């Protein structure tokens, strides 16, 4: 439990060092740790949703499986792949910032944003399909539960699942939008040559956020799209 901070009066202060930190190391550590604590709250935030979802799923497993047939796993899988690539480019962006490779950093940030945007576009197409399909229970005129794949006994439960679907993917998409905003800021900062081996904290920290949003999707994909896939033919 010995104290880890070493106070050295650094004569050459980095311009990025805020006054209340002793050194850049402490600042970097605090920022990344702070982001992790924030992600802890995010875990609980999505965890609450997953918890409520799990309870209903355990109450109505068949209804949820049937409802899942109205999700298009191709969209889900495609978006998973897109997000994973964006995570790769993000990781490479952080690496480039750390090594001071300005050009690569900017390219990787652009790629990350493109993939992030791609995710939202695909999601938009998917939402549109649900809208046309009358699978948006939030709006009375856009909800219908009929057809051969819609067993009537599940009418009510299906509504609940679709609510969770929009609630969870909606909050996830909101996080993506926020992430894109952050990436834009980081990109502008990168253009000004702010980052280098001694200061890349913002890139690292926003990278953590980006990867977390990716992880949420990694769970949403099987839970929402794949639970009833095999029951298609019943």
């Amino acid at each position: 439990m010995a104290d880890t901070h070493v106070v050295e009066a650094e004569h050459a202060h980095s311009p990025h060092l805020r006054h209340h930190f002793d050194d850049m190391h402490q600042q970097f550590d605090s920022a990344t740790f702070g982001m992790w604590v924030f992600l802890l709250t995010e875990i609980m935030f999505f965890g609450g949703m997953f918890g409520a979802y799990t309870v209903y799923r355990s109450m109505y497993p068949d209804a949820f499986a049937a409802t899942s047939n109205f999700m298009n796993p191709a969209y889900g899988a495609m978006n998973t792949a897109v997000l994973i690539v964006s995570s790769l480019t993000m990781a490479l962006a952080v690496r480039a910032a750390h090594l001071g490779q300005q050009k690569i950093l900017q390219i990787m940030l652009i790629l990350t944003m493109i993939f992030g945007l791609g995710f939202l576009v695909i999601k938009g197409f998917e939402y549109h399909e649900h809208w046309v399909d009358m699978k948006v229970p939030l709006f009375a005129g856009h909800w219908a539960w009929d057809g051969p794949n819609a067993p009537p006994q599940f009418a009510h439960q299906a509504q609940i699942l679709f609510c969770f679907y929009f609630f969870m993917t909606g909050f996830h998409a909101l996080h993506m939008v926020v992430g894109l905003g952050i990436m834009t800021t980081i990109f502008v900062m990168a253009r000004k040559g702010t980052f280098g081996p001694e200061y890349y904290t913002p890139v690292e920290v926003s990278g953590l956020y980006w990867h977390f949003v990716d992880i949420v999707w990694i769970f949403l994909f099987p839970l929402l799209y794949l639970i009833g896939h095999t029951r298609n033919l019943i």
Partner: protein
Amino acid sequence: MHSVTPVRTYVLIWLILTIMTGVTFWVSTINLGPWNIVVALGIAAFKMSLVIWFFMHVRTDNPLTKLFVFAGFFWIAILLAMTLGDYFSRTWMPGGKFW
């Protein structure tokens, strides 16, 4: 600050993640009964671990970060376990005297 991870590692992790996505998709088309969800969540957990461990640098991070990451999932487990404990045992009616 962190040591630099080689590009090769990142690409390799990405490859595994993409392949696992395909595997999840494929497994879901086979009827394993209740095991479908277990396999799907297992793969998701594995993918998550890779992202956390490599992309998010927890591999080289200090034990404190590891503890906090663990705490997050542990707390979700509390929420789920104790809530579902109620739902699953609600219908068990005791048949007679218990004490």
